[in-house]
């Protein structure tokens, strides 16, 4: 029930953003569109209820929000770093690449957290998530494969994101 109310609020905010019934110039408020938005959001909440998963979180919401905001610049930093690394490998005359697929393991349980992790790995140039299994095994394609061992590869690819994602999603 709580999830459906959350979806309703979420959908109503989205509806408000795409229609924008309040006009700043004339100061008029369009009541019809607002009522239609309420009906539509109720429909969306009833049809598509299970958007948010209900898991118990260890930390409170402000702690998670704080680390979620912190996560974005850190992700950007790693993306820029990986960009420079790939650039070096492209313009180097000998082209020092060693592509291959490596298996890594994540300890995150939440599917949303796993998705964010996989998308972060894909966003960093040079590494690409190919598949993910229910046991937490990720298949990652690297442009420069150094470690084929699962433990060392996990330390190299996953751990830098996992530390923060654990604080955000648990």
């Amino acid at each position: 029930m709580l999830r459906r109310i959350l979806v309703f609020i979420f959908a109503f905010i989205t509806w408000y953003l795409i229609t924008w019934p309040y006009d700043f110039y004339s100061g008029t408020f369009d009541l019809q569109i607002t009522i239609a938005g309420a009906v539509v959001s109720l429909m969306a909440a009833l049809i598509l209820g299970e958007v948010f998963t209900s898991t118990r979180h260890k930390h409170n919401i402000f702690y998670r929000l704080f680390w979620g905001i912190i996560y974005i610049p850190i992700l950007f930093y790693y993306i820029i770093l990986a960009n420079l690394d790939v650039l070096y490998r492209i313009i180097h005359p000998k082209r020092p690449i060693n592509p291959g697929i490596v298996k890594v393991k994540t300890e995150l349980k939440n599917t949303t957290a796993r998705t964010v992790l996989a998308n972060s790995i894909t966003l960093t140039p040079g590494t690409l998530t190919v598949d993910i299994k229910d046991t937490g095994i990720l298949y990652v394609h690297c442009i420069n494969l150094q470690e084929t061992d699962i433990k060392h590869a996990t330390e190299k690819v996953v751990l830098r994101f996992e530390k923060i994602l654990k604080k955000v999603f648990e």
Partner: protein
Amino acid sequence: MNGMSPIVQTVARFVKVFILLYGIYLTLTGHLTPGGGFAGGVVIASLYILLTLAYGKKFSLKYFPRKLAGSLDSVGALIFLVVAVLGFYFGGIFFANFLQKNYPGAEFSLLSAGTIPINNIAICIKVASSLFLVFIIMAVARIIDKKDGSKDYKQDQEKE
């Protein structure tokens, strides 16, 4: 057709509310902004196609069975025709916009333009359910290679 990886499923779970809202927005405000019944219907149909691709056909057939899709297809056409015939009764000619003629709403508001929003909704229902029907009938059709080299054709039936 089975579902795809958990990454696709999670992203589809978050995106589906946005797609549904966008489709309904296009349909409801089709007489004020770009859009209309056709665009909204195709967008909603693509939402169901996304869910079918991400979660597998069993999921979407559970929430939107084939019989319901066929009924909604007819319902959309019927609403359209009933509005047309009502125009014959109230306005004198087929497809007359009798609501606008008798009770005109304020311009640029949601409840204006008489029968046009009703027709938009009818067309949205019709287009969405027809396209979903075509997709699901192609998704459940499968061709099996037999041992003697010929092909067999099978249509997965949903459980009643």
